[in-house]
């Protein structure tokens, strides 16, 4: 089946898979967003316990999706892996440290004799939630704004500025995306609490903070989106792989791929509706609308970053070193083999749905926290 596809078709298929994984990753960052709200919303110890435990039953999904995203990128576009990870060293290392401290924080925080004290582990969760989302968003911003690297004739890469990735924060557009992801994660996190925690006071406070976070989210998202639509992008010639620039490239990509534009607009509307329904109709289903909207928007953004002859990782140092899905991908054979493996994805989604439903079949309340044997 996949073996009969052209190499280009497989590259496109794998860019779609990468985009899907990225979109689910951003959605699942509601865990990170929620973590940044623990100190704000958890005024009483039992409330804090409920907040942590509501997230603690889901953190592994985000973590696993991040690891799978990395593995899939490595397998399908190894030149990006070697160029970006080996070059933007500080950014990726900072992101990894954020996730290292998250992985133990849930399990260790409430255990006796935990060496660092509960507050330290809660601070770890906050750092992971805040820095993790901002840094990932900023790093993804370089998919549009480019980075300072070169690739030689042997496909060996080198970062050309000593900041090794930290220079990305000097571009406001990258930072705007980072802050958009941060506030979006907080919004999703709050809506997740509204959906899954049975505590009137907490729900009331949560709605208030939903509004506080919605405003900066909309500001940063609009700033990012408007700039994206008017900026130029790097385009490649599929025959010669020569790279040049094109004004309004990402706007053109939306217009050239109307379905992607529809995904983007539908996603934006869903996120706005989730906020509206949570704030003004006091609905607890906003999390699902917001989650679906997030998936659609991020999916669309990744598609315009890599499809339609666009360089998804532009080099600001040497334009011809820019990476696109054709010059950075794995071989036809590997993409074919991996494509068969990707057919397992529906099965994975099905059992995640089953497990999620089983664990979240009723809201967390104070009683459950006192009686359960495995409480974070």
């Amino acid at each position, binding site marked *: 089946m996949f073996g009969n596809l052209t190499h280009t078709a497989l590259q496109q298929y794998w860019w779609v898979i990468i985009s899907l994984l990225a979109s689910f990753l951003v959605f699942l960052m509601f865990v990170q967003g929620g973590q940044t709200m623990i100190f704000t919303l958890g005024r009483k110890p039992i409330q804090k316990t409920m907040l942590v435990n509501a997230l603690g*039953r889901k953190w592994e999904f985000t973590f696993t999706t991040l*690891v799978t995203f990395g593995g899939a990128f490595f397998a399908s576009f190894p030149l990006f892996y070697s160029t970006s990870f080996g070059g933007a060293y500080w950014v990726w290392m900072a992101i990894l440290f954020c996730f290292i401290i998250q992985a*133990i924080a849930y399990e260790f925080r409430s255990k006796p004799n935990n060496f660092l004290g509960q507050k330290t582990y809660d601070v770890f969760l906050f750092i992971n939630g805040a820095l993790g989302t901002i840094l990932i968003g900023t790093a993804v911003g370089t998919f549009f704004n480019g980075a300072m690297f070169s690739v030689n004739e*042997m496909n060996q*890469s080198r970062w050309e500025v000593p900041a090794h990735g930290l220079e990305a924060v000097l571009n406001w557009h990258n930072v705007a995306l980072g802050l958009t992801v941060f506030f979006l994660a907080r919004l999703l996190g709050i809506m997740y609490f509204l959906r899954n925690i049975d505590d009137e006071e907490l729900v009331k406070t949560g709605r208030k903070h939903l509004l506080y976070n919605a405003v900066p989210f909309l500001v940063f998202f609009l700033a990012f989106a408007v700039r994206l639509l008017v900026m130029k992008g790097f385009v490649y010639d599929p025959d010669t792989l020569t790279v040049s620039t094109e004004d309004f490239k990402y706007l053109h990509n939306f217009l050239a791929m109307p379905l992607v534009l529809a995904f983007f607009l539908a996603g934006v509307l869903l996120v706005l509706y989730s906020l509206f329904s949570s704030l003004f109709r006091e609905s607890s289903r906003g999390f699902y609308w917001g989650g679906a909207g997030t998936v659609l928007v991020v999916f669309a953004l990744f598609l315009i970053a890599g499809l339609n002859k666009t360089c998804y990782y532009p080099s600001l140092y040497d334009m011809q070193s820019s990476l696109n899905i054709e010059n950075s991908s794995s071989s036809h*054979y590997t993409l074919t083999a991996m494509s068969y*493996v990707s057919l397992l994805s529906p099965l994975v989604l099905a059992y995640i749905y089953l497990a999620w439903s089983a664990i979240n079949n009723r809201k967390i309340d104070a009683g459950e926290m006192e009686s359960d044997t*495995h409480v974070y």
Partner: protein
Amino acid sequence: MIDSIDLSLVNWSRGQFALTAYYHWLFVPLTLGLSLILAFMETMYVRTGDEKWKNITKFWMTLFGINFAIGVATGIIMEFEFGTNWSNYSWFVGDIFGAPLAIEGIMAFFLESTFLAVMFFGWNKISRKWHLASTWLVAIGANLSALWILVANAWMQHPVGMHFNPETARNEMLNFWEVLFSPVAVMKWLHTTASGFVLAAVFVTGISAWFLLKKRENLLARRSIMVAATFGILSSLFLIWSGDQSTRQIVHVQPMKFAAIEGLYHGQEGAGLVAIGVMSQTADDPENENIKDFAVRVEIPNFLSYMAYGKFDAFVPGVIDLINGNPERNIISSAEKMEKGKYAREILKEMKDARAADDFVTYEARKAMLMDPEFQENYFRYFGYGFIDDPGRLIPNVPISFYSFHIMVGLGFWFLAFFILALLMAWRDTLARRRGFLRLAIWTIPLAYLASMAGWTVAEMGRQPWVIQDLLPTFAAVSQIDAGMVQVTFWLFAVIFTTLAIAEVRIMTRQIKLGPKEGRK
């Protein structure tokens, strides 16, 4: 770019990878084995309906959860380090190496993490059978994840199922099944997971022994020892068999590693196996500090030949044969391999230069040469030797390889004896009276970790200088970054992982002291 490698960068990068890998491997084996022990204990609960089995399962599950969390924390860095610190490697073999990592995520990690949540939080939310299925799926997921990363590791030790594509200047996969079912990969998975089972069985037996010494949790301890010792005996037998098979493979695919782990410098017919040996403190060969002969050794005559080739008089090549060559035995010298490797690299460079100069005639000619199967067999297979300037660099650290291997093997046999004794005493119900044995059981826990670490050292130190056997030396695989950057992250990892490991041990010991009743929360 590769010719201007900073050796300080290489050493720090190696140090960082070793540090993070050791920390990760400190926690993973317990997860592999304990997940299966948990699944078996819960099966007993579901089959018998005996609540005591449920309590026993929950106690070990608490310890499993603590260990699992830090295993995850130390694991995430491993995947990304291939990119951050070994970017040349990531491109050179990413076409092959990336696939197992991605499959690991899709097939194993999601299975493990999804059902882990059900296993911990589902006790009062789902049926017993569904919960049991979740526990088994966690165990399967954990061991499946080991399969994929070990397939990737085995491929580095014995690259198969691929060819070199001069256009992209990398190795590309030709046969996925050959990579997955490479005998080296299969045996590595079996041996490594079996070592995890043994470690977990030692852990459970040792902790249970502590309860018996303290005259607490008698039922939990006796039942746990019965389960763990039985599991341990089966796993130990399997471990010894798979270890023997792995060693026989190494003779053929990594003869230098085999010579190093056996401390065999000069090849001979009817080579003896050094059962116990102490290496001299001074170098035997002043030009290579790795060449150190034995100050003391106890040897089993002819046994190494038998172990390697199944014949007591077979010739086993030593370190010197592999470096200087041995025409009588058709072993070519390192110098010759280096010449061939340099030639292969030169042809590749000429091809790239011709392309840059739009000299298509030369380009096509060089490309045809590189694609020629005869050239690949006679020259390209030594591509990695083209990076080597000094044949001495082809010798791994013999003392470390030798000691690690012998510690691992010796302890492996001790664990088998230990489990048999524990099971016999548990069967006769005399364990509680054997206080000396109970103390020994506790002290066997660190020995299991020592053996596990030694095994990893054998695998990784013994293959040096190669990151991919014969194709890419470790020093040519690093990212083009400053050594100072890696020093910073090395120390950050050292501080954070050490801190977390201390926290883990403190939490674990407190949970054990609290026992199954109070320790559940």
